[in-house]
């Protein structure tokens, strides 16, 4: 009787562990220390999360990149995306999915400004991306997020196709 309860418990633990391994943000054993470079058109990491409809946002060029934008990027984003946006911040070796390289035009061309805005505001999970990308909507206002999108466009020297 107790044996059965035990089994039941450990099965539950295994299932939970599985859920974590599949969807969590921490480094896993295989990839620890050598982050896998993101490939172009990489499929969403968390495939089970439905992509929310992309909200309509005003014309982004109304939010120029200022010294404050770059400061904000250095303060909050660089800890994962790196000082130059190359995806090699101090946390990068410890995240299951590497932070995006913001200088990589080939990938960022495939993403619209609205999609980038959405992921920054609501987080990776809400945008069909990895949960290691936090949501910044309670920290930064929309104007700042728009100007960060423009800054990322400067870093990649690219526009959405």
């Amino acid at each position: 009787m107790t044996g059965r309860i035990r089994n039941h418990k450990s099965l539950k633990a295994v299932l939970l562990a599985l859920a974590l391994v599949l969807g969590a943000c921490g480094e896993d054993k295989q990839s620890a220390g050598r982050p896998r470079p993101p490939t172009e058109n990489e499929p969403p990491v968390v495939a089970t999360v439905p992509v929310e409809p992309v909200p309509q946002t005003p014309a982004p060029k109304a939010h120029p990149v200022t010294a404050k934008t770059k400061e904000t990027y250095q303060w909050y984003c660089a800890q994962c995306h790196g000082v130059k946006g190359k995806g090699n911040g101090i946390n990068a070796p410890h995240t299951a999915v590497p932070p995006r390289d913001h200088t990589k035009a080939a990938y960022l061309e495939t993403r619209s400004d609205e999609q980038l805005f959405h992921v920054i505001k609501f987080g990776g999970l809400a945008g069909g991306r990895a949960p290691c990308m936090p949501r910044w909507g309670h920290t930064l206002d929309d104007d700042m997020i728009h100007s960060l999108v423009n800054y990322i466009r400067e870093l990649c020297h690219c526009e959405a196709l």
Partner: protein
Amino acid sequence: MTTTTPFSRRFLFGALLLLPLLTGIGKAHAGPDVASLVENGCDACHRLEASIPEEGRKGPDLFFSGNKFQKQWLLNWLQSPQPVRPSGYTSDPGFLEGKPTVAVPHPAADAPEAQALTEALMQMKVEGLETAPPEVAEPLSKGLRFKIKILFERDYGCIACHQTVNLVGEPRGGVSGPTLLNAGDRLQAEWVYNWLKTPARFEPKSRMPVFDLTEEERIQLTRYVMWHKTEKEEK
């Protein structure tokens, strides 16, 4: 403070200059006795009063130490300080390279000094914190812990910045935030509960995003953080 630490003399000098100013503030507010902290030069890097400007801080604020820390942890840590933030305090010039430059190693005190410093720090409190519900102190069952782990690692991605314990008890996680591996020895549950809702109250310039947690999530994450002790009561 051991006189052999290279910067204790430097900071003693700075402290002497600031002494009249700070003791003045202390008296005006009839607050805790910060004299032992000032004598030891702690104020060269830490704010001991909320009224001191934020600019130029080299270490985390200590004016709410009595709300934040566990007394025993302070007493031990001040005698043999180990890094809490693997990349240093957020203002450290080496932070974004993950190579802290300030207070490496942190100044250490001998036992009687540590005792006096701990007494002073534990008196330093801020008023008006939200009272945490009693659940935050209850031990966490394994099942619930795994559930909250998903919240911590997947829903909010906290592990991208904070070291915690994985399923087989090994440390893992990012290095930009303070380690949480011994958070249950170091922090007070009520402080964690308050931090999760109003971090700006304790750190006006954090690098951590602000989260809009539900009350249940806030309680669960507090319990999960507090579960991380050096000696865990396995359940």
